[in-house]
């Protein structure tokens, strides 16, 4: 198998009438997705677009998913853009891409025009029913290689300029095969998608749906505000599999939803991107004793996720849920600062080796060269690994444990401190909802932000009992809600900026 579209070509003729993708206002069967994808591919090709980025700027919907596959049929690669993304960021992305064509829908057309975009704007509704040109599509396929790009997704760069990660067929096929194996997807799987379509996170649902002839519901975003309604939706659609960010799961458990209603069909729960507070995690396990829980870890630059740990034991306060080990056909090298391998228990940077490593950052050789580097353990031939900037260690069971971003490791009064370790202790306290530590490198102060029902004074007292003196925060600040990045991770950069500017 060399092309991601083969999943659809094998499945659609087998189950043409089965529901493939459903959203709030529309749904598509496999037969429809298949026919329209080829139509969209034909339309793009007939207009001369080939081997170039095609921006998909649409409202999150089954149609948007359909547009992705259509772009791949044309031999181009899709670049999904968030409908709600600020114009400034879209401008930066267009600057990096220099695209000739954008696919829009009624929600986004005016916004695309307002950007001053000079290329062609195609309306999804106008191209979706294009008659397939089998000869043109066959010619494109014959020339396609498995190392050709499928998509570019943009991640936030530390400098504020987004970086476009380019992934090819081979990496995505490798990911879908090994992820499906690890989580046990099948034709019976009913996904409830939470993550946005403009990140690689949604690969977990979109491509296994095609591979197995499964079904994906794109859950209306609004439901993530209303825990009981959300669980009722899961039950109504008989959703049995979710791959969500931790904060979406804790939103359900933290408000006592399980006392009212439980997800009746849910059997596979995968989570990632953030540390799961153990108290909330155990509420989930009690509510769903039959379900499997899997912690996922991975950077966009290594195609979705690259490590997983299927929970196989009890976790109590103070325990860390490991990120486990790599998927089949991926290796994790834990490299120390001197580029040698970390021994068990030693901290090292997570470096990814294998087919899952993406092609690099689009139109950005400098940033690509910084993190897509020659494997320092291999002097014999070219071999690129991806340096994640994340720190981990192997526990005494041989499992990888995530520690923190490399940037959160600070040196203070001669001690090496992981800010993530301070947060882990804070999160153990009753009533803490979330916490985030930043380091003021000018005044050399550790600053702790937290949300929850704990008095500042009480918390400081408890921390004194749980942390070595040198790790105690110098300032503790209670806030009403944590700022989040578009990825759903706590926005450390923003908190630090606020602090450095003298605010709280």
């Amino acid at each position, binding site marked *: 198998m060399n092309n991601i579209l083969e999943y659809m070509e094998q499945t659609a003729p087998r189950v043409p009438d089965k529901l493939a993708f459903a959203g709030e206002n529309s749904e598509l069967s496999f037969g429809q997705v298949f026919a329209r994808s080829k139509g969209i591919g034909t339309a793009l090709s007939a207009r001369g677009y080939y081997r170039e980025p095609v921006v998909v700027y649409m409202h999150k919907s089954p149609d948007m998913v359909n547009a992705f596959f259509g772009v791949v049929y044309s031999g181009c690669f899709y670049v999904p853009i968030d409908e709600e993304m600020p114009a400034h960021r879209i401008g930066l992305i267009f600057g990096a891409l220099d695209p000739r064509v954008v696919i829009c829908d009624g929600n986004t057309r005016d916004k695309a025009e307002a950007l001053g975009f000079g290329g062609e704007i195609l309306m999804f509704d106008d191209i979706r029913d294009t008659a397939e040109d089998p000869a043109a599509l066959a010619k494109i396929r014959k020339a396609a290689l498995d190392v050709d790009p499928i998509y570019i997704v943009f991640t936030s760069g530390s400098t504020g300029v987004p970086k476009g990660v380019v992934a090819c067929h081979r990496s995505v096929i490798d990911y879908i095969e090994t992820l499906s194996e690890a989580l046990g997807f099948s034709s019976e799987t009913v996904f409830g998608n939470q993550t946005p379509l403009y990140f690689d996170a949604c690969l977990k649902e979109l491509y296994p749906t095609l591979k197995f002839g499964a079904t994906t519901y794109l859950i209306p975003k609004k439901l993530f*505000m209303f825990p*009981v309604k959300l669980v009722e939706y899961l039950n109504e659609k008989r959703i049995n599999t979710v791959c969500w960010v931790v904060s979406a799961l804790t939103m359900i458990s933290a408000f006592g939803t399980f*006392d*009212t209603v439980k997800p009746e069909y849910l059997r596979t729960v995968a989570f990632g991107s953030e540390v799961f507070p153990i108290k909330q995690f155990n509420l989930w396990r009690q509510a769903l004793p039959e379900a499997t829980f899997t912690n996922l870890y991975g950077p966009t630059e290594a195609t979705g996720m690259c490590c997983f740990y299927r929970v196989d034991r009890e976790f109590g306060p103070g325990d860390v849920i490991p990120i486990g080990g790599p998927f089949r056909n991926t290796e994790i090298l834990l490299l120390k600062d001197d580029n040698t391998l970390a021994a068990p228990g030693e901290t090292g940077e997570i470096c990814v080796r294998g087919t899952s490593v993406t092609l690099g950052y689009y139109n950005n050789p400098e940033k690509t060269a910084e993190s897509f580097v020659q494997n320092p353990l291999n002097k014999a031939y070219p071999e690129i690994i991806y340096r994640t900037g994340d720190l981990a260690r192997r526990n005494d069971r041989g499992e990888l444990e995530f520690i923190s971003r490399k940037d959160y490791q600070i040196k203070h009064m001669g001690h090496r401190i992981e800010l993530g370790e301070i947060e882990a202790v804070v999160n153990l306290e009753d009533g803490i909802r979330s916490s985030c530590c930043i380091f003021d490198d000018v005044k050399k102060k550790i600053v702790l932000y937290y949300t929850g029902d704990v008095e500042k004074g009480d918390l400081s007292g408890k921390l004194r009992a749980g942390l070595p003196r040198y790790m105690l925060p110098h300032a503790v600040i209670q806030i*009403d809600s944590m700022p989040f990045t578009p990825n759903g991770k706590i926005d450390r950069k923003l908190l630090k900026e606020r602090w450095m500017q003298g605010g709280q």
Partner: protein
Amino acid sequence: MDKLLEILKEIHADVDYDTCETLIDDGILDSFDIISIITEISSEFDVQIPANEIVPENFNSAAALWKLIEKLEDE
């Protein structure tokens, strides 16, 4: 009610809470706003909003939210 309006103003100062009845339907409040509102209410009014009351009808307007607080205070 003034205390509630203060909480809401803190979150979006530019919304007219006296007249707006579509805080949820029009996407004015997002999920992080809801979580902060629930947190603030529980500390200011000493009531816990149970999960089955976290529904759009109770958050669409300041008046609906105030009615919910009064109901919970009576219980």
